[in-house]
């Protein structure tokens, strides 16, 4: 017996709904808190409704919490880390994909092993390292560490995609008179764009959300990235302006979530292409 399409859809949505609720609930609370007037923050029993829809919360928060500065810091760190990670992993992944050399298998395993180590284990060591390099309180310390932490993943990801690009294409380019560099730039890399987009998204989001290292390395509030800046609105305060905290969180997460969901078609294509072959 076959169910009608409608029945099936309803059934599947019912099955999915607990998950949807769990995922959306915090976002709901976040949003509702962000737009309500300050004196309605702690009503009991809690309600979803509010008397006044206050967009002004966002502009107040922007000024009061130095949101713009933190946003710029976050953008600088995430974009630079992504660029460096990609620039360094493309040649590494290319070498892993195209050349045979001693210890290649061991290197791949090594990359995988580094992923098993939590960054928090390394925080102390990294802090001392950055101290000795004079990079504490310098956003570049985050750029370097984020790029480094993400490279194992990006190399792994790029390599499996590179493997799926036929070697014949480069060979054909060489026969056509192209040098290795020319064939790389004009034939290989244009074909690897989906993989590069995917890895860039991942690296960007990882860097954007990272908290522990940013909290450790950045001592002055001028250098805080968004997660630390928002945290600073909560931790160690006599009075927490929850509506501002939530407005900041909305601004820090929603745009990224939108970009991410728009780019996910590349993500799925890139992953499948890398995985199947």
């Amino acid at each position, binding site marked *: 017996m076959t169910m009608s399409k409608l029945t099936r859809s309803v059934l599947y949505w019912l099955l999915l709904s607990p998950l949807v609720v769990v995922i959306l609930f915090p976002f709901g609370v976040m949003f509702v808190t962000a737009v309500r007037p300050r004196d309605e923050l702690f009503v009991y029993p809690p309600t979803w409704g509010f008397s006044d829809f206050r967009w002004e919360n966002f502009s107040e928060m922007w000024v009061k919490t130095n949101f713009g500065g933190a946003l710029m810091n976050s953008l600088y760190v995430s974009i630079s880390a992504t660029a460096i990670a990609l620039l360094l992993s493309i040649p590494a992944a290319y070498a892993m994909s195209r050349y045979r050399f001693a210890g290649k298998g061991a290197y791949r395993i090594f990359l995988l092993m580094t992923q098993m180590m939590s960054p928090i284990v390394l925080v102390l060591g990294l802090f001392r390292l950055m101290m000795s390099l004079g990079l504490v309180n310098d956003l570049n310390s985050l750029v370097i560490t984020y790029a480094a932490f993400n490279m194992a993943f990006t190399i792994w990801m790029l390599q499996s995609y590179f493997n799926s690009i*036929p070697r*014949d294409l480069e*060979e*054909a380019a*060489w*026969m056509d008179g*192209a*040098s290795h560099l020319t064939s790389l730039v004009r034939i290989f890399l244009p074909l690897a764009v989906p993989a590069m987009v995917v890895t860039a998204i991942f690296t960007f989001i990882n860097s954007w959300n990272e908290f522990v290292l940013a909290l450790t390395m950045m001592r002055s509030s001028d250098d805080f990235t968004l997660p630390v800046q928002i945290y600073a609105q909560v931790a160690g305060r006599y009075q927490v302006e929850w509506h501002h905290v939530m407005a900041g969180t909305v601004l820090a997460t929603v745009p990224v979530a939108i970009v991410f969901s728009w780019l996910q078609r590349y993500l799925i294509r890139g992953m499948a292409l890398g995985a199947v072959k």
Partner: protein
Amino acid sequence: MSSVTIRGVKKKYGSMPVLHGIDLDIRDQEFVVLVGPSGCGKSTLLRMIAGLETVSSGDILIGDRVINDVPAKSRDIAMVFQNYALYPHMTVYENMSFSLRLRREAKEMIDRKVREAADILNLGKFLERSPRQLSGGQRQRVAMGRALVRDAQVFLFDEPLSNLDAKLRVVMRTEIKALHQRLKTTSVYVTHDQIEAMTMADRIVVMNAGRIEQIGTPLQLYDTPANLFVADFIGSPSMNVIRGVLGGDGDGAFVALPDGARLPVPGLASGRTGQQVVFGVRPEHTALAADHTGVAVEVEVVEPTGANIQVYTKLAATPFCAIFTERHDFQPGQTIRLHFPQDKIHLFDAETGQRL
């Protein structure tokens, strides 16, 4: 255009030898086909000429220049790949003009050459399309066009027709041959399909397990195969081969089969009485014998193809195929008598496999 000379070329992957010393002279304007079963080293040899594999020892020359250490891009060789290797992000026009653009040729010159090649290959309508919008045969033509625009000294083909369906393969085979007759560029063509080799080649190089078994024109290989491998490889269906013992009496030389039957053979050649030999005759060289002459066999399967009739039987317990161009109404179970014209018989040493 130029000759290609291969002198004592060997190839090893680690300690695994793949080619055991290849010597081959490909003359200017010649169309040479390297043929052999998969894994025989023919593609490796082609890729070494192209510069895509290193040479372990020996020399490869184009004209009289040793090119062992010349990178692929400077060898002035064009190559057509098995899977076409068209650049997927470029249009047909861009694919074909890529090599010329790399050389920074003048725009008008590039345009003229691409359009010329497109005319020859009937690609005029497709120049602005991308490769994925083309059929297999059209992609194949683009791959050829990419080689054509170059005016390269040598063309290399690496099983270019193996991804096409049977009918298109026959068409493209003729097109490539016609193209060669027109351009006369020295060409080396790799295939595992002996029909392709026979129909296209000026000379065929039969390879097996990293060695050359025989070099010759298609008909030389067909008429006088140097050994059992070539005899079996060239011709379709394959040559019938039956083991026996060479003998002779007052009526002349014969091969005694295990079941006692005697097949007359022309002279002893370089064989001696009592020698273990392999008797070979091509299916198309068998004829029906008059009553009480020839050897009797029982028809097992009859396959009419229209052009001829293929009859499968057993001779001395060995599978045996006979092809008749005349129409006969054979029935399975029927006994027929076969006769083998003396000048169509091949004898090989059973031990070495070499022709006697």
